[in-house]
């Protein structure tokens, strides 16, 4: 028999409640906010809300000359800042027809691959930290500091680079760069053993990542997922092989792919990619020619002809593209950047459905998004 109070109390009919994850939370992917509709522990609907890092890069692109836009490029995806810088420089060089000396191409490739390794290392450290393990974070950052030392010495910057310039690089590398890089590669390869023992063979890690967050090829095609997330599904799609730019067609390296498309495969693909980047760096260091490093005279006035260009390249997160429309002046008419994290985050609206809250953190970490590049 219901009491008098019960007749006035509204019965709870809905099991689903909305939980706000972010925009400030310990998982350091940037300012991401996900509105989760939860039924107990299970996610019924996931709606990422982005835009907390919107800085107006595309509008700035229209108000800055090509040279003035160089600092902006690194700051979109700051973990692969040199790759973005490299990509922008390549796009404008192709557009405006600027010649690049051979030595500069090799230097840029070495630095770009070093940046790719450092980005994957940071992802590795923060992903395992998200899952609860703090020690690999310290190991990964230690290795990363060695890379940053090398890049800092040649470019002057640890995180956001403007080292690649139109027509080459702004400063030459010396023998110490080559020696330090080689000794770093030797040291890094000996660390795989540590990473394997700490993480890859760790039972807890395997349980938290195997079968979690499976992305099918069809979902990838619907949402525009690229990069290691797509390669973990089994598609060997890497811009360095599909549309070779710079001198990547001269090097011998493989594209690691996975089979199931779950978080464990994504982890393995990225670890294997670091090894392939080491291979590219070795070959580039062996073959680096002498000669000039900057075709500075050709870049006095960067005025691409009227028209447009779309330049796609492979950043650490996936396929990135610069779409530039020029009206013949030194200012772009339109500067649109296609970022890989866009599709990578969007696929979560489907992948997170039906998973548990703790798995959601694992999936979010495994797709490796950097929110300021989505927000531009």
């Amino acid at each position, binding site marked *: 028999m219901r009491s008098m109070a019960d007749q006035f109390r509204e019965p709870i009919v809905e099991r689903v409640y909305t939980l706000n994850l972010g925009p400030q939370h310990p998982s350091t992917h940037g300012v991401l906010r996900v509105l989760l509709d939860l039924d107990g522990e299970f996610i019924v609907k996931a709606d990422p809300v982005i835009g907390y890092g919107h800085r107006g890069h595309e509008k700035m692109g229209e108000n800055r000359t090509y040279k003035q836009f160089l600092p902006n490029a690194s700051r979109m995806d700051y973990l692969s800042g040199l790759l973005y810088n490299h990509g922008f420089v390549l796009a404008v060089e192709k557009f405006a027809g600027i010649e690049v000396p051979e030595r500069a191409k090799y230097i840029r490739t070495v630095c770009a691959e070093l940046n790719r390794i450092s980005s994957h290392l940071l992802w590795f450290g923060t992903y395992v930290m998200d899952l609860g393990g703090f020690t690999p974070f310290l190991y990964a950052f230690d290795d990363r500091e060695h890379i940053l030392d090398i890049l800092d010495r040649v470019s002057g910057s640890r995180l956001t680079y403007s080292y690649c310039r139109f027509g080459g690089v702004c400063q030459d590398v010396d023998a110490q760069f080559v020696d330090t890089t080689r000794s770093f590669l030797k040291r890094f390869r000996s660390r795989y053993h540590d990473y394997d023992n700490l993480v890859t063979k760790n039972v807890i890690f395997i349980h938290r990542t195997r079968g979690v967050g499976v992305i099918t090829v069809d979902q990838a095609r619907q949402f*525009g997922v690229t990069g290691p997330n797509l390669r973990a599904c089994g598609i060997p799609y890497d811009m360095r092989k599909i*549309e070779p730019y710079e001198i990547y067609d001269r090097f011998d390296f493989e594209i690691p792919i996975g089979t199931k498309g779950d978080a464990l495969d994504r982890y393995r693909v990225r670890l294997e990619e670091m090894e392939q980047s080491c291979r590219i760096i070795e070959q580039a260091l062996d073959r680096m020619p002498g000669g000039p490093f900057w075709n500075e005279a050709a870049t006095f006035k960067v005025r691409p002809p009227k028209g447009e260009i779309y330049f796609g390249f492979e950043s650490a997160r996936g396929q990135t593209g610069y*779409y530039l429309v020029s009206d013949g002046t030194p200012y772009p008419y339109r500067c649109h950047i296609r970022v890989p994290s866009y599709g990578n985050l969007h696929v979560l609206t489907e992948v997170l459905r039906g998973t548990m809250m703790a798995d959601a953190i694992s999936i979010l970490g495994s797709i490796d998004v950097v929110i300021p590049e989505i927000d531009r």
Partner: protein
Amino acid sequence: MANKDVMIEKLRSMLGDDAVCVDDKYGAGVVSAATAPAAKLVEALGVFKDTGFYLETMTALDFQDTQEIVYHLNCFEPMSRMSLRVLVGHGVSVPTASGVFTAADWLEREVREFYGIQFEGHPDPRNLLLPEDADYHPLKKDFGKVHAYRTRDEIYG
């Protein structure tokens, strides 16, 4: 036959020969650029999807006389990027592509908030990057500081 060749054939038969221009040397980063009227947009995108393409990105351009939406599509084969362009006047709306490619859901939200182009039938036309109460369209050339505002022919003529 490679996917891109199949696609070029289908586009030619659907839109007419002079709406599709092919550039095998990949000078502008695309192997072909097609122009479609807004009415045939969703059909063309459906053909892309059936041939195994994915929507890489979508953006818009603002000119004095018109606005233009550019879709870039790509498939998992080498050198296969194709672009599809739709001319829309200022204030004209375009059918949504989110029924064909789910990626268009967010991409159209972004184009709508930055350019003011409305997409008919879009399931969720909220602001994506700007604050929810933003009522301005930043990337239009009459907003804020603008360096140049040109007509379409000045660039593509």
